[in-house]
């Protein structure tokens, strides 16, 4: 049984149905890539997995570590060990990165984390991800560049040590250096913490720096093709149109 099991997931917003029966398995220690053209439902899936209120699940289930979380609150899913690295991280003015991390860590603990222990963890995470220490006293995402926001996401991931992380187009809008830092960060967490990751990407750039074992292609709200890393190369060569014709998507 996989750690994260998505079965026949149907999701709609107020206007229309976006996911039309998604099946997907992700476990710890596995690197998955999810690709697809714009509008295929990738972000919807990412947000639905964490329970975003704008998305309504009309059919199907999400099971995490054996528990049905289809109806769970977002914070319960996070506490259970799911993490979403946002495509557009939100600014929380007036709250420093460090304080926010401490609060998030304490949400999962019986006793609040001690100052020394927290400081130590933060130091290790900062080193691991090669981030500037001063970063942590800035207000979360407030006035951050795109690259800084994504780094902050990965720093949070390192501190919260989730079982499965979903990265929602983490590579969009990043320059090569930022991209490399983010990819390296994910790889290190995968290697050191046994993180399972679902890397959602449109352009596949990040996949040059962190190679997935499993690749899924999404179109029109369904996963239409699955394979290994060779699928990435194929998409780079052919684009999505060829595959769309092959699978008859949109029917």
């Amino acid at each position: 049984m996989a750690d994260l099991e998505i079965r026949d997931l149907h999701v709609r917003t107020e206007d229309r149905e976006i996911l039309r029966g998604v099946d997907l398995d992700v476990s710890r220690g596995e690197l998955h890539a999810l690709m697809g053209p714009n509008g295929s439902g990738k972000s919807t899936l990412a947000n639905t997995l964490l329970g975003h209120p704008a998305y309504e699940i009309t059919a199907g289930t999400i099971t995490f570590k054996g528990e049905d979380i289809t109806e769970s609150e977002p914070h319960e899913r996070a506490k259970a060990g799911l993490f979403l690295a946002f495509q557009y991280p939100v600014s929380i003015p007036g709250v420093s990165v460090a304080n926010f991390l401490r609060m998030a860590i304490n949400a999962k603990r019986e006793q609040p984390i001690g100052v020394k222990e927290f400081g130590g963890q933060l130091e290790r995470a900062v080193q691991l991800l090669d981030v500037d220490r001063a970063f942590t006293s800035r207000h979360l995402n407030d006035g951050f560049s795109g690259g800084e926001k994504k780094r902050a996401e990965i720093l949070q991931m390192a501190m919260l040590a989730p079982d499965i992380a979903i990265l929602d187009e983490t590579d969009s809008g990043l320059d090569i250096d930022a991209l490399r830092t983010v990819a390296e960060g994910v790889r290190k967490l995968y290697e050191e913490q046994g993180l399972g990751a679902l890397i959602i990407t449109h352009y596949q750039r990040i996949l040059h720096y962190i190679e997935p074992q499993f690749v899924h292609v999404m179109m029109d709200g369904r996963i239409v093709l699955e394979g290994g890393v060779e699928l990435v190369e194929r998409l780079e060569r052919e684009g999505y149109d060829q595959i769309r014709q092959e699978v008859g998507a949109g029917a």
Partner: protein
Amino acid sequence: MPDTVAPKPGRHREASLYHALHGAGAGLAGREGLSPEAIREAARLVFEASELPVWRRSGFWTTSLQELDLDDLEARAHAPGALPESVRAGLPERGGPGAGLAGRIVQVDGSVVHVELDPRLAERGVVLSSLEDALRDDERAREHFSKRLTYDRHKLEAANAAFWTGGAYLYVPPGVAVAEPFEIVYAIEGAGVAQYGRSLVVGDRASDFRVHEHNLAGSFEGQSLHAGAFECYLHEGARCRLAQVQDWSGGEVYDVSTRFVGVGRDAYCHWLPSLLGGRLVRQHLELAVSEPGGDMAFRGLFFSEGEEHLDAFAVDLHETGPSGGDVHWRGAATGASRSSFEGLIQIDPGARQTHTYLQIHTMMLSPKARLDAIPSVLVSADDVSASHGGTVGELDESAIFYMQSRGLDRASAVRLLVEGFFEPVLTELRDEPLEDLVRAKLAAKLAHAREDIEAYATTR
């Protein structure tokens, strides 16, 4: 002076602002050279001839005191003694005078019950006493008394000027710098009280000090009233940080008060009222730079809940230039409360080279709350800059989801957002015990309003 600039016909709004600013009648008792005793008499006449006030703004907003039973309220006297425990519990933890506190004066209902002052400061000429005592034999106090306060804008202002008892007087001599704060405390102990508070603070040349005013009440059923008049005059080069934490708690306390702070030549004032509780609170707050080189930072925060009604009118007045000013207020409303903040930058003729900025940011936290944020500018001089902005916002649901996705439950996420919202102003208190007190009050208000805040999410 503003008197000579008549409101233009047809500009109703300006006219009403001038009216509010300068009183219905002759007023401005200080200029008339009336003695403190004569002011009482003149004010009594106005009191007897007036009705309870109603403030209206452009048909959208009304603050009415019709529910106040003034006849049932009295100024209650108390014997002096130690600091009452109920009052101590509402103040931030500090040491005594000389150890965390420069001095403290406490008025409960109609009487000053407690005064303490660091003896070393007394030796250097600092005066902290009841205003009644000061007006008896302190020439300087008599000179400054009511210099820029009126007694005839409305019935409660007149009541204060006619009937005030106790009061607080603080004088800081030239060149004296005091790091620890002076606390001025007005407490209302029960129902049926009319507390006419009167405070006079004078900072002489190049003095440097802090004043924290605390307004607090126990919980009780029934009405009480605090009609206060506060005036602070800063002489050349003086620097003052003024903070006020007003929390009349969840009872039925009405607070209609006027505050005036005058910043002299090259002087500076940082003023931060926190308006955090009261059945109906109407505050007229005026920070005036009266002489060249004066500078000020006017900050404030407010948070109404339940059925509270808050009406704050804050004026950043520049009478001469060059001068600077910077107004930044933040407020929130939950429950079915209504809060209005009107901030006016007024630059008089002759106040050239004045540079000011006003911003008011508010946050609606429940479907039934009402918030008005109205910045305005009245400029009568050249070579100035006066810009302003106001926002009425709501909780950012995407920010809440973001925090929830990190394991924070909804209530914690909302608390973080609201704390983060107030933080830019709150941190300017620059006094940790006071900041902690205000943060605790904000957290308590959020806890009370939890259901409203949840409900609000589902309706949007």
